[in-house]
């Protein structure tokens, strides 16, 4: 009645005077135990059996009792083993299950009647309880029976059954499950360590080995017989089967191990071959948007490689190939097609389609995997930068959209298009090259007034700004500012001229666009674009120059006749027309207007009068005298080309149903020619050199003393958002700066530079 049980023992002497004869008591007890085996417990009094065992233990016969019980159980099991040795197959499993359950039941009852022995004798002598040790007897007498080797037989029967199930037969899972329970309930030693379960020590290892062989064979066979999709599905099915087998038939302990076998034999060993299968592998799935199959690939690969390296590699390789392919076709088409803009747009569309496609796959099949996304971005960056026309093409794409494409679209649609362009922009490493092209295209849009909407333009620039910062967009914004200022100036100049009516001539109305030369991609000054203006024009020009320089002293104003346009009124056959021509065109027409009717001018004469550079003159004359709808001049002889010997006259027969006629110069292709591109490249190089130098000086000024590698790294990081500088270029710049004595090598240390103030 004391809670701290086991401390107080009943006195052994005095009270226990009555002598106990072990054999007598044991006989009764043994009989009772045999009755338990015979399922006759209902005729037994628990109290009596219990009291007998109690007495024996009390009288120090515990070890004899323990030994005798073990012997009795052992004998019984031996008898069972002999009786059951002949059953085979499923019957064998059923029988074993029955024997095991019977043993468990009887042992449970014996354990209870012998509770006093377990509690006092076993605990005191630190020996395993009678239940545990009888479980050991089962292991030794039944499973490890030296003659019948029932354990091995059991293993092979279970394995046969599982093989049958893997081959598609139906088996009795419950019986196997029961036998596995038995193996799980038995231990190698009486200490019953968790990792010493008989299931683990004698069954599982064999099972795993057999499965390895099985799946290795199956892998080879599937690889031979199936296409990729079927293979993946089969593997997936196998995984599910093994999972449910572990839960329904075998033990959950085996699940991770058998999964690993399948992972290794079916996935790890073969997945590369599967992905490379001709006509059904990864390439096929990607090209044909097989989301389900790709999802499987992803899931299976995730099982063996959390990084999914091989999938990333193969997918990116395909992506880059696709990208390069479309670049290559575009380049080959470009040679035949005359409209490069269309080609550029096709290219951008294709790249965007590719991006959409892969993004779709990523979303639907790859679980939005971050690593794969990064790999995809890398792949896009790779092939877009590999294609040297990409900055130009992307800029052309934006140009086209801002000039025409966006007409009549809602704000959100506009935004979507611009965003598309921006995603591609992000991939470009040489942002400065793009900037150059964009500047060129933007200036054309602004000067020719071709932009659909200034809002859209600003929106685009805003997006660039968000993406790479103010330094990148500063010049674009400057261009817009120039446009606004020019407008103001034009109207103010007009007002002033009208007021004073000084040099203001009716009939010549001037509209100026004053461009800050560093913002705009317009090289050269007046000297490069000589042109003798007609008198009245010259007057207006001079008066404006006067006006401008008055307002802004210290500035230089250059006139660019090659970039402007003019409206000229002319009468043909009594019908008034307004001709919108280039400034050069206007100058040429003015030369004719001074002639008497029917007069002619030769090419050379025109050249002398106007001093327009030959190339520009040819182009303008082509527009005025060759293009069929706008032929206001006629030339002799009639031919498509302009020759230096040609003679021109006003086409008196000219007619058109329109009042206003635009006479455009035969378009110099808006994409670049080879020559132009070389120029652009050269310019880019020069610009980069200057940028790198600026960065170098900035860094040196700040650090005074810096090692070579540090300096180079610093430059690389500073330039990263704009372009990828070439290492040799940086070196060259450093050398040049040293020559010019901006910096020097520190004494004694060749790899360290010092800034010279």
């Amino acid at each position: 009645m004391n809670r701290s049980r086991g401390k107080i023992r009943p006195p052994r002497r005095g009270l226990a005077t009555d002598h106990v004869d072990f054999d007598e008591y044991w006989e009764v007890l043994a009989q009772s135990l045999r009755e338990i085996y015979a399922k006759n417990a209902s005729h037994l009094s628990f109290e009596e059996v219990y009291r007998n065992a109690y007495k024996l233990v009390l009288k120090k016969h515990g070890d004899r009792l323990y030994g005798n019980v073990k012997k009795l159980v052992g004998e019984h099991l031996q008898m069972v083993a002999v009786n059951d040795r002949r059953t085979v197959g499923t019957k064998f499993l059923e029988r074993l299950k029955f024997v095991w359950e019977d043993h468990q039941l009887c042992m449970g009852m014996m354990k209870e009647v012998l509770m006093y022995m377990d509690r006092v004798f076993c605990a005191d002598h630190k020996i395993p309880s009678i239940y545990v040790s009888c479980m050991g007897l089962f292991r030794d007498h039944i499973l490890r029976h030296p003659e019948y080797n029932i354990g091995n037989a059991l293993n092979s029967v279970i394995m046969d059954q599982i093989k049958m199930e893997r081959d598609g037969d139906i088996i009795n899972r419950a019986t196997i499950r029961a036998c596995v329970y038995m193996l799980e309930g038995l231990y190698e030693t009486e200490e019953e360590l968790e990792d010493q379960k008989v299931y683990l020590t004698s069954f599982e290892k064999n099972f795993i080995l057999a499965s390895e062989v099985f799946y290795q064979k199956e892998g080879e066979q599937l690889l031979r017989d199936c296409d990729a999709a079927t293979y993946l599905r089969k593997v997936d099915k196998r995984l599910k089967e093994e999972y449910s087998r572990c839960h329904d038939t075998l033990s959950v302990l085996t699940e991770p191990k058998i999964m690993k076998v399948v992972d290794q034999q079916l996935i790890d060993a073969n997945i590369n071959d599967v992905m490379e299968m001709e006509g059904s592998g990864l390439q096929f799935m990607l090209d044909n948007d097989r989301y389900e199959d790709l999802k499987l690939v992803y899931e299976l690969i995730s099982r063996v490689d959390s990084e999914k390296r091989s999938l990333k590699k193969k997918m990116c390789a395909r992506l880059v190939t696709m990208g390069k392919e479309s670049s290559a076709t575009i380049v080959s088409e470009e040679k035949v097609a005359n409209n490069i803009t269309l080609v550029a747009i096709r290219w951008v569309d294709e790249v965007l389609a590719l991006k959409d496609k892969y993004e779709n796959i990523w979303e639907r099949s790859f679980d939005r995997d971050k690593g794969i996304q990064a790999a995809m971005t890398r792949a896009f960056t790779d092939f877009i930068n590999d294609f040297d026309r990409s900055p130009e093409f992307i800029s052309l794409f934006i140009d086209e959209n801002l000039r025409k494409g966006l007409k009549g679209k809602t704000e959100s649609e506009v935004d979507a298009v611009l965003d598309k362009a921006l995603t591609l922009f992000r991939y470009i490493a040489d942002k400065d090259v793009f900037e150059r092209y964009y500047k060129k295209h933007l200036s054309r849009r602004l000067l020719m007034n071709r932009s659909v909407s200034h809002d859209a333009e600003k929106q685009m620039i805003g997006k660039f700004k968000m993406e790479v910062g103010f330094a990148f967009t500063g010049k674009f914004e400057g261009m817009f500012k120039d446009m606004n200022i020019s407008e103001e100036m034009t109207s103010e100049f007009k007002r002033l001229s009208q007021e004073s009516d000084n040099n203001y001539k009716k009939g010549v109305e001037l509209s100026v666009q004053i461009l800050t030369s560093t913002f705009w991609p317009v090289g050269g000054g007046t000297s490069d674009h000589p042109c003798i203006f007609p008198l009245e024009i010259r007057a207006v020009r001079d008066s404006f120059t006067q006006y401008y320089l008055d307002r802004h002293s210290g500035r230089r104003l250059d006139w660019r006749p090659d970039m402007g346009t003019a409206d000229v009124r002319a009468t043909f056959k009594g019908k008034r027309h307004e001709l919108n021509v280039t400034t050069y065109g206007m100058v040429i027409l003015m030369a004719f207007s001074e002639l008497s009717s029917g007069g002619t001018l030769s090419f050379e004469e025109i050249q002398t009068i106007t001093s327009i550079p030959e190339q520009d003159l040819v182009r303008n004359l082509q527009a005025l005298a060759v293009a069929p709808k706008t032929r206001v001049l006629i030339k002799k002889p009639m031919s498509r080309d302009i020759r230096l010997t040609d003679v021109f006259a006003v086409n008196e027969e000219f007619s058109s149903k329109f009042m206003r006629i635009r006479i455009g110069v035969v378009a110099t292709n808006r994409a670049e020619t080879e020559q132009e591109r070389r120029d652009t490249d050269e310019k880019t190089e020069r610009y980069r050199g200057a940028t790198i130098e600026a960065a170098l000086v900035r860094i040196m000024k700040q650090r005074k003393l810096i090692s070579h590698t540090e300096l180079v790294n610093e430059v690389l990081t500073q330039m990263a958002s704009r372009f990828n500088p070439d290492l040799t270029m940086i070196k060259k710049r450093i050398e040049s700066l040293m020559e010019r004595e901006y910096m020097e090598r520190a004494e004694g240390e060749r790899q360290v530079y010092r800034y010279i103030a």
Partner: protein
Amino acid sequence: MSTTAPKTQDENSVLLVSNDNHTFILRKSSVMISPAIKSMLDKKSNFEEAQFNRVVFKNMNGVVLEKVCEYFYYREKYRDATDVPDMEIPPELALELLMVADFLCT
């Protein structure tokens, strides 16, 4: 013990009988404190005791068994309580009760 011996019909109570034929009826829940008695009444193994809900203790007289029963109820009553009053144990019974407690694993 025979089948004609008195037995209780109530599944929630149990008869405890001493060797001098004193019979005590107790709530089953209270006697389950003893693992030995619990096993005796286990329906699964179905010994005589479990069939008749009746346990005969050949090694206890009425006086001792009464004290045992008293303890069962005492134990159940104060199961989760603190500040428990001592149970009264006559000194002459103490030794025998200790023996019985060991026997019942209580």
